[in-house]
Every structure is written in C-alpha cells, then in structure tokens.
C-alpha cells in the first residue's frame, strides 16, 4: 500500500516537503527505517510517529485510510 505521510516543523525542512510518499508501507517500523534510509540526516534526529493522531509507542500495522504523521519535538507555548 502506498501512503502519504504528513511531516511537520524542522523535520519537514530537512525532508524538503510537508508530505512524503512511501510505497508498501506495511507498518510503522517500516516507515521509520525507510525515512532514515532516504534521509540519513534524520538518524539521530528525535521524532515521533503518530497514526490517526495517536502516539505509536510500538510497531503498528498500517491500514488503508490511516493518517500517518511524523512529528519533531513539540515547542508550543
């Protein structure tokens, strides 16, 4: 399955876009590995992955229609 991932803040700056497309995105670990392989600068960059606006703390399968986003550390306030 090909999905479009939303990217925010400094992460979007590094990737060069607010969106990033991944082919065969089976689960969140796959997405993370693929991201780091495409953008090696992100290896030591802290980010979290959210699926349907919920934090994902362990590997999670991606379903059709899931909204996936990559978020750098928050800086509100």
């Amino acid at each position, binding site marked *: 399955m090909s999905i479009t991932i*939303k990217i*925010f*803040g*400094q992460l979007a700056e590094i990737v060069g876009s607010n969106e990033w497309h991944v082919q065969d995105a089976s689960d969140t670990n796959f997405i993370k590995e693929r991201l780091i392989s495409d953008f090696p600068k992100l290896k030591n960059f802290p980010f979290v992955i*959210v699926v349907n*606006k919920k934090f994902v703390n362990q590997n999670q399968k991606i379903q059709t229609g899931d909204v996936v*986003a990559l*978020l*750098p*550390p*928050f*800086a*509100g*306030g």
Partner: protein
Amino acid sequence: MSEKKKRKVLVSGAIAPEFIANSIAKHSSKTTIGAHDIFLGQVRSDVIGGKTVQAIDYTAYEEMAEEKFHEIREATFAKFSLSCMHVYHSLGAVKAGEISLFVFVSSTHRADAFDACRFVVEEIKANVPIWGKEIFEDATHSWKVNTN
C-alpha cells in the same frame, strides 16, 4: 462524546491584551468564581549564536493539536474543581514581546486555579504538536526548543 463543547484554541497571530481584558470582563457575571489564574507566554528576543530572535512563526498539526487541547481540557476539568477554562495559542508570526499563549482558569478557591493553570501549561508544552521557527533579523531561523 464529551458534554463540553469543543472550542477552537488555535488563533491567527498574537493574542492582544484587549482580548485578554474582554475575557476577564466576561467573567464578572459568574459570581461563584473567587480566583482566576492566567498564564501568558510571551515571545522572547533570545540571542542564539549571536543573532537576536525577532519573531516566532508557529505551525501546528492543527487537527491533532485541537484534539489534544480538548483532551487536556477534559482532563483538567476531571482533576480540578473549576468554574471555567479558556485556552488560546497563536499560529503564524508572533513578534518578540507579543503573546502567543493564553491560559485562563477560574475556580471558587485559589488552590484549584493555581494547580489547574500550571497543569494545563505543562500538558500543552509536553503533548500538543506545535512548533516555533525563531526568525532572526537577517531572515535566517532556528527551531525553538522548549525547556522547563
């Protein structure tokens, strides 16, 4: 579903002192309130690598941010005895010296207002997907990092 209606927290640009005054004035009809605690986040002109911050340009994962703000609201009402609570956070450019966060909590007795206001601010900093690009005078930027 929650009983309390969802309010939009994210607003465009800086939060004006007059807006804060209006919010305060609206509470004069709620005469069970004895204590208000208001937290305001103001943009600092920090010096980073020899350059001075002129403004912060805020972005957010808006749908998720509003959802998180709503969760924080529900958690705060569950945890503290409050009369009411209002939260506003800026999106877009906010100049140094201007206000980007307005947390307003009201209760009968002061302990609840103090505890709740602080709880809300800490929750926002930790859990709401908002980012700030610190803009320098030469149009370069760095990314805001929150501290305690």
